[in-house]
C-alpha cells in the first residue's frame, strides 16, 4: 500500500514537471525517500521501473538522444513571400534606354535546425535550408514547371546551411568552427544575413556591471559570464535592471572564402595567378553600454582583409556591365563601423542605427577596374530609425533607413541580396514594417527604392535583375513568417 502511495506521489510529480527533467526529479525524490527511510531501496527500484515504463510509452520517451548531448533544441521557420523586383536600364543604354526589367515572384523558404550543448562545454548545430544560394533560402513557385511538368521538385532541394561545433570551456571565450551563423556584429549593408560563413571564429566578451548606490558611494563591479545570443553574436538583447552595464567584446574570424583545387596543378596555373586558397579575415572589437531605462549604445569597429586568390574570385573586379567581372575580391581592405543607439519612449523601443564603411584599397581596386583616379568611390553608409519590436503577439515594428554605397567600397558578394539587389554603387531608401499576428507568426512588408550613386560607374555585383548598370531599382516584398 505504501509503495502504491509512493508511486502515485512520484508519478504525480513526474507528470506535472517538465519532460526533460522529470525522470531526474523523480529519481531525486526517490533517493530522498530512501534516505529518510520512508521506503526501502527495493521499493524505490520497483517504482523506478514503473516510471521508466511510463516514460518509455510517452512521445518524449520514444526519442533517443546520445549520451554526450546535454541539451538539444529543434528550431526553424517557414516563410511565404510575394515579391516584386524591378530594375531600369540607363538612359544612355544603346538598345533599350529607360526600360524596366521586372519580376513578380511567389516564393517560400524553409529552414530547419538542431542546436545543442554537449558534455564538457562543447556545442554544435546543424541547419537545413532550401536553395543553394548563400544569400537566399527562397524557392520560387513554378520556377521549375517546365522540367517535369507543373509543381516539379527540381528546385525544392534541402541543403546544409549550417554545420558547426564549438567550445565554451574558458570563461568569456567562444570558439566555433564550421559553417556557422555570422559571428560578427554587422548590418545588411555589408553582410546579407542569410550568409553562413565557413571557417573559424573566436569570440570574447566580458561584462562589467557598475552599481552607483545612493549617497554617492563608490561603484561596485561584478562579473557575469556568457551573454551571447543563440546566433553567437555579441549582442545583448535587453537591458537588465541595473545601473550601468558595459559589455566589451572582440570577435575574430578566419573564413575560407574560396578553395583552390588543385593548389599545385600540373603545369602553369590555369587562372594565371598563383593557385592559393582565398581567405577572408575579420577583426572586430566593440562595446555595448546599457544605461537605466533601456537606453543603450553599441559600437563595433571592424576590419576585413582578404588573402590568397582562390579560383573563382581572383578578379580584377570591374563591375560596369554584366559582361565584366562583378565578383572579384582584389584590393579590399575594408573598415566598417556599425553603431546603434536605443532608448524607450513611453515603453516603445526606439533606436537609431548606422553603419559606415570605407575601403582603404579603393585606389588600387578602381585602377584595376579601368578607372584610375576613381578611388574616391570608397565609402558606404546607412542611417536609419527603428520603432517598436517583434517579439510577441500584437507587437509591431517599423524601420526606415537611407543607404549609400559606392562602387569600390564593399565586397559585392556579401551585401544584402534584396534591398539593392546584391549590388554596390546604389543609394536610396528602404522601409520595413512588421506585425506579430501571433507569438510565432508575423507579417512583414519591405519596400526599397534606389538609384545609381555615381553615373560614371556600373552597379557592381550579380543580382536577380540581369542588367548592369541598374539605373533605378525598386523592391516590394510581402511576407508571412512562421517561426518555431
Amino acid at each position, binding site marked *: 500500500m505504501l509503495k502504491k502511495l509512493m508511486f502515485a506521489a512520484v508519478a504525480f510529480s513526474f507528470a506535472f514537471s517538465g519532460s526533460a527533467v522529470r*525522470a531526474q526529479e523523480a529519481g531525486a525524490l526517490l*533517493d530522498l525517500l*530512501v*534516505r529518510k527511510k520512508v521506503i526501502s*531501496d*527495493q521499493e524505490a*527500484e*520497483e517504482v*523506478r*521501473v514503473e516510471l*521508466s*515504463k511510463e*516514460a*518509455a*510509452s510517452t512521445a518524449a*520517451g*520514444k526519442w*533517443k538522444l546520445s*549520451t554526450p548531448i546535454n541539451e538539444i533544441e529543434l528550431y526553424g521557420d517557414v516563410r511565404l513571400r510575394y515579391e516584386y523586383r524591378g530594375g531600369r536600364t540607363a538612359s544612355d543604354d544603346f538598345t533599350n534606354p529607360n526600360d524596366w526589367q521586372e519580376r513578380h515572384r511567389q516564393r517560400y523558404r524553409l529552414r530547419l535546425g538542431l542546436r545543442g550543448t554537449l*558534455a*564538457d562545454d562543447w556545442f554544435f548545430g546543424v541547419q537545413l535550408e532550401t536553395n543553394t544560394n548563400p544569400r537566399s533560402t527562397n524557392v520560387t513557385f513554378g520556377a521549375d514547371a517546365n522540367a517535369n511538368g507543373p509543381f516539379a521538385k527540381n528546385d525544392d532541394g534541402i541543403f546544409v546551411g549550417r554545420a558547426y561545433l564549438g567550445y565554451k570551456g574558458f570563461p568569456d571565450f567562444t570558439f566555433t568552427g564550421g559553417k556557422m551563423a555570422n559571428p560578427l556584429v554587422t548590418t545588411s549593408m555589408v553582410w546579407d544575413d542569410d550568409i553562413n560563413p565557413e571557417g573559424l571564429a573566436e569570440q570574447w566578451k566580458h561584462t562589467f556591471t557598475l552599481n552607483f548606490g545612493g549617497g554617492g558611494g563608490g561603484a561596485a563591479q561584478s562579473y557575469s559570464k556568457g551573454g551571447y545570443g543563440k546566433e553567437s553574436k555579441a549582442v545583448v538583447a535587453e537591458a537588465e535592471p541595473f545601473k550601468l552595464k558595459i559589455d566589451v567584446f572582440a570577435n575574430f574570424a578566419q573564413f575560407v572564402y574560396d578553395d583552390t583545387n588543385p593548389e599545385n596543378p600540373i603545369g602553369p596555373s590555369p587562372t594565371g595567378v598563383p593557385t592559393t586558397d582565398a581567405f577572408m579575415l575579420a577583426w572586430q572589437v566593440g562595446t555595448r553600454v546599457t544605461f537605466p531605462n533601456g537606453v543603450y549604445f553599441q559600437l563595433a569597429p571592424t576590419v576585413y582583409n582578404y588573402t590568397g586568390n582562390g579560383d573563382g574570385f581572383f578578379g580584377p573586379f570591374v563591375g560596369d556591365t554584366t559582361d565584366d567581372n562583378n565578383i572579384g575580391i582584389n584590393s579590399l581592405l575594408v573598415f566598417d563601423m556599425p553603431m546603434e543607439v536605443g532608448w524607450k519612449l513611453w515603453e516603445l523601443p526606439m533606436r537609431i542605427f548606422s553603419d559606415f564603411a570605407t575601403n582603404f584599397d579603393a585606389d588600387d581596386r578602381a585602377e584595376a577596374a579601368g578607372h584610375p583616379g576613381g578611388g574616391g568611390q570608397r565609402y558606404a553608409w546607412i542611417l536609419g530609425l527603428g520603432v517598436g519590436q517583434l517579439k510577441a503577439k500584437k507587437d509591431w515594428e517599423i524601420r526606415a533607413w537611407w543607404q549609400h554605397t559606392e562602387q569600390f567600397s564593399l565586397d559585392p558578394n556579401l551585401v544584402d541580396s534584396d534591398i539593392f539587389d546584391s549590388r554596390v554603387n546604389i543609394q536610396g531608401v528602404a522601409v520595413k514594417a512588421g506585425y506579430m499576428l501571433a507569438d510565432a507568426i508575423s507579417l512583414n512588408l519591405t519596400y526599397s527604392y534606389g538609384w545609381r550613386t555615381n553615373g560614371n560607374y556600373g552597379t557592381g555585383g550579380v543580382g536577380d535583375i540581369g542588367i548592369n548598370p541598374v539605373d533605378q531599382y525598386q523592391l516590394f516584398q510581402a511576407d508571412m513568417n512562421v517561426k518555431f
Partner: protein
Amino acid sequence: MKIKYLAISLALVTASMSSANADRLVIKGSDTLGAKLVPQLAEQFKAQHPGTTFDIAAEGSTTGIAAIIDGTAQIGMSSRRAKSSEVGAAASKGKHMKPTVVAYDGIAVIVNSANPIKGLTKKQVEQIFTGDVTDWSAVGGSGGKISIYTRNTSSGTYSDFKELAMKKRDYAGGSQKMAGNEQIAAEVGKNPNGIGYVGMAYTKAGGVKALPIDGVTPSSKTVQGHSYSYWRPTFYYTNGDPSGLAKDFVDFTIGPAGQRTVAQVGFVPIK
C-alpha cells in the same frame, strides 16, 4: 505395437527433458556479479538443492537485461539500473522488468599509501578525474603530477563512476585504462602519485589506501546507509515476480546465507 513402444519412449524422453529443464536455471548478465558472487551462490544453492544445474553467462549487464527481454534467461544480472528504453522494449514484448536489489557495491577512491593526502571532496574527485586539476598540490597534497587509473571503457564501473563522481564528464586525456580492480590497485600501489577507483573488496591491496570522500570513509555501514557517495545497487532482473526455481534462488540470494556470501565476496549486503 512398435508404434506404441515408440510413443511411450518419446513420452519418457520428453518427461525426462522437462524434468531436467525444471531444475536448470539460466542466468546471464553482469560480469561484476557473475565473476565470483553468483557462481559461489550457485554452488551453495546446489548443495541445498541437489539436481539443480546452473547455466551462468557473465558477459555484461546489457546482455542480462536483453536476456530477460528475449526470454532466454530466467534471471538477468545487472550492476546498473535498466534504462527506460530497455524497460520500454520489454513492455512492448509483454515482459515486465522486475528488479530485485541483491547487493550494494561501493566504489572506493584509492591513492598510494605514501600519499599524505587524508581525504577528498566530491568536487575534488571530479576535478582530478576530469583533468581540471593535474597536480596534487591543488587538492592539498605535497605536489607532483597526478596519475589517473581507470577501468577500461567496456566496464560498467567505468561509466558508473562517470555518473556517480564526474557529472558524466569525460575522463582526463592522460588517464590510463586498466582491465580490472586488481590492476588498478597494483598500479596505484606502485605509483606515489597514482589515484584510481576499485570495488571495496580491493582496498586491502598492498600499498594503497581508500580515501574518505567529503569526510565519509567507504565501509559496509556507510554504503548501506548511503552516506558514502559512490555506491550503487546491483540487481537480479526477472520477468515479473520470479517463480519456481528462479524465485528460490532469488530468495536464497537475499536471505541470510546468500548475504553472508555477498559480504565474503566483497560486496555490501542489503541488510
